[in-house]
């Protein structure tokens, strides 16, 4: 059994039979290691004779069964992330990737498909510490970011795939639909402490578009963060105040780009 792990406030373990996949997940989940242990996921291979060969169980109850190993792995990690986001009460969660340098963080809030995971992967490759690719967790008491370094989920078409170090042959079948990687696979590492949000950038990938970055007002920055919050209703007016404090201490931008390299340059420059 791998773990225990802690995704935000969600404790879990993972049981995997396949030795190659176990080794791979051990690396990908390494930044989440720690905590008291909790629910146990099991990744089960029913064998080649079974039409729907792969199942994921949670504490003995099957949550999905599929013929595709990559779908099973994606579902497992999606389920863990969903639970982590749902059970978190302490943190104000923003749908955003983020990375840091010397304790100063760039937050990249955006809807799915905007390229925030690809961009944060490139930033990690540039030496920034990885915080998360999905749910940026703000501690309301301090306004700082709590790391949630889940495996990055890179789509098959993501140009960040080129940044990866080699994928072991034994797990390629598990990574056909998405490549789930820890920051180490990008040659980087995870942030292990609190980081202060300093730059807020809403990224949008548009094929062939020139790189254009525009400053937005502090109120627009609050709106951007609030619109991408997972659980603002749970934090209410205090949550809005927290976002206001963050906006007062940071600079906000929108970024449209068709070039990962240029987008990465722009963000690194803004972070200083």
């Amino acid at each position: 059994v791998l773990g225990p792990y802690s995704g935000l406030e969600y404790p879990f373990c993972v049981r995997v039979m396949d030795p190659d996949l176990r080794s791979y997940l051990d690396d990908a989940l390494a930044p989440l290691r720690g905590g008291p242990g909790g629910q146990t996921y099991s990744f089960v291979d029913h064998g080649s004779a079974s039409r729907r060969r792969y199942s994921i169980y949670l504490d003995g109850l099957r949550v999905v069964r599929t013929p595709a190993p990559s779908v099973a792995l994606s579902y497992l990690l999606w389920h863990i992330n969903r639970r982590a986001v749902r059970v978190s009460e302490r943190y104000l969660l923003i749908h955003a990737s983020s990375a840091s340098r010397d304790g100063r963080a760039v937050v990249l809030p955006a809807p799915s498909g905007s390229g925030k995971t690809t961009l944060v992967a490139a930033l990690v490759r540039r030496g920034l510490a990885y915080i998360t690719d999905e749910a940026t967790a703000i501690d309301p008491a301090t306004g700082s970011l709590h790391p949630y370094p889940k495996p990055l989920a890179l789509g098959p078409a993501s140009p960040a795939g080129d940044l990866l170090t080699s994928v072991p042959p034994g797990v390629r079948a598990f990574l056909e639909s998405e490549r789930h990687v820890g920051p180490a696979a990008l040659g980087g590492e995870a942030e292990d402490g609190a980081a202060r949000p300093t730059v807020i950038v809403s990224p949008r990938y548009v094929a062939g578009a020139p790189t254009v970055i525009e400053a937005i007002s502090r109120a627009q920055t609050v709106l951007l963060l609030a619109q991408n919050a997972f659980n603002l209703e749970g934090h209410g007016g205090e949550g809005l105040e927290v976002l206001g404090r963050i906006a007062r201490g940071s600079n906000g931008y929108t970024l449209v780009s068709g070039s990962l390299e240029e987008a990465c340059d722009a963000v690194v420059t803004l972070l200083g």
Partner: protein
Amino acid sequence: MSQERSQLPAARWTRAPSVSAVELDGETVLYDLRGRRLHLLNASATVIWAALDGSRTSDDLVEELSEAFGIEVETMHDHVTWVLATLREEGLIEAASSPGGRAGRGTR
């Protein structure tokens, strides 16, 4: 501006208790916890929002703001009426309860 919006009751207006607000550099973000909706007020709407403490009617606001900003009353009236009507339509403000009970009467 719709006809309905131009007929704003002559209430003393106040911010709805379900609405949280944060003001930054002259703009305001509103979060309506009841409807879970977000709104961004520009600079002029922020000035009006800040004055909605339940002590002023729309006519009071027009008079104060036209004087403060040197804008003619008719122009300010149209703007204040439109902003208040929009805020009211979104459920962000409400008539302040007062013994005089002025809410519901026409403004002009």
